[in-house]
């Protein structure tokens, strides 16, 4: 699935940088009914993880109260050049990944 990742391409060592992620997902709550009264089954992303050169730096547990197309913004210290890996997982075996690289001077 499509994801939008915003990570600065370059940073100074020790800088605190903001990482913003947006992924497309319906985040069906499991509390809605169709017009004929059937419950629409839950289909949400339950977990998000960000790894920086293999080390987990941020993790989130998501619930149906997170809006559709989950947006997350968080911070980290730029320590070394390398790669950020993002992973979303959820109901019905949903899994999606994305990555971004950074140059640290």
């Amino acid at each position: 699935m499509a994801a939008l990742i915003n990570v600065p391409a370059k940073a100074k060592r020790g800088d605190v940088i903001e990482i913003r992620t947006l992924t497309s997902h319906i985040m069906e709550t499991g509390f809605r009914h169709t017009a004929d009264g059937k419950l629409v089954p839950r289909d949400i992303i339950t977990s998000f993880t960000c790894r920086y050169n293999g080390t987990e730096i941020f993790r989130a547990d998501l619930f149906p109260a997170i809006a559709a197309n989950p947006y997350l913004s968080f911070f980290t210290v730029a320590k070394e050049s390398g790669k950020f890996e993002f992973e979303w997982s959820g109901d019905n075996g949903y899994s999606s990944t994305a990555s971004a690289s950074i140059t640290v001077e």
Partner: protein
Amino acid sequence: MPTTRRQFLSLAGGVTAAGTIPIVTLRPLEATPAMLNTAIRNVVGEAQIRTGRVKLDIPPLVENGNTVPMTVSVASPMTATDYVKSIHVFNEKNPQPNIGNFHLSPSSGRAQVSTRIRLADTQKVVAIARLSDDTFWQAMADVVVTLAACTEEMN
């Protein structure tokens, strides 16, 4: 013996009351303040929750509860010995009391998380931070919602 009007009404009233109660209990579509407390206690345990250090930025008046921007920040130096372990956000009246749990580390640099949430009603939102010394701090905000999320019919 013919049924009197009074007997008939009390009987009909009893049937109606008995008939409606199961429907109400089958659809608890609002988290109650008790559910909010339980959800908070599941995270916090018996620890005391203090007010302060946490800042919860959320609009006080929301037109559309389907997507409400929210930022939680915690005053913390974010060093190896004094940092924020996690941030937990709860609501009072959605069908479920949890909104999200966010796990940080000293390498986060700044204890701040933003996301967009759903609010099913005008209600209270609570953000709780767990610090590295296992103390808990909280902030609350009241949000007025004019168009609710979550429980509307699907088209």
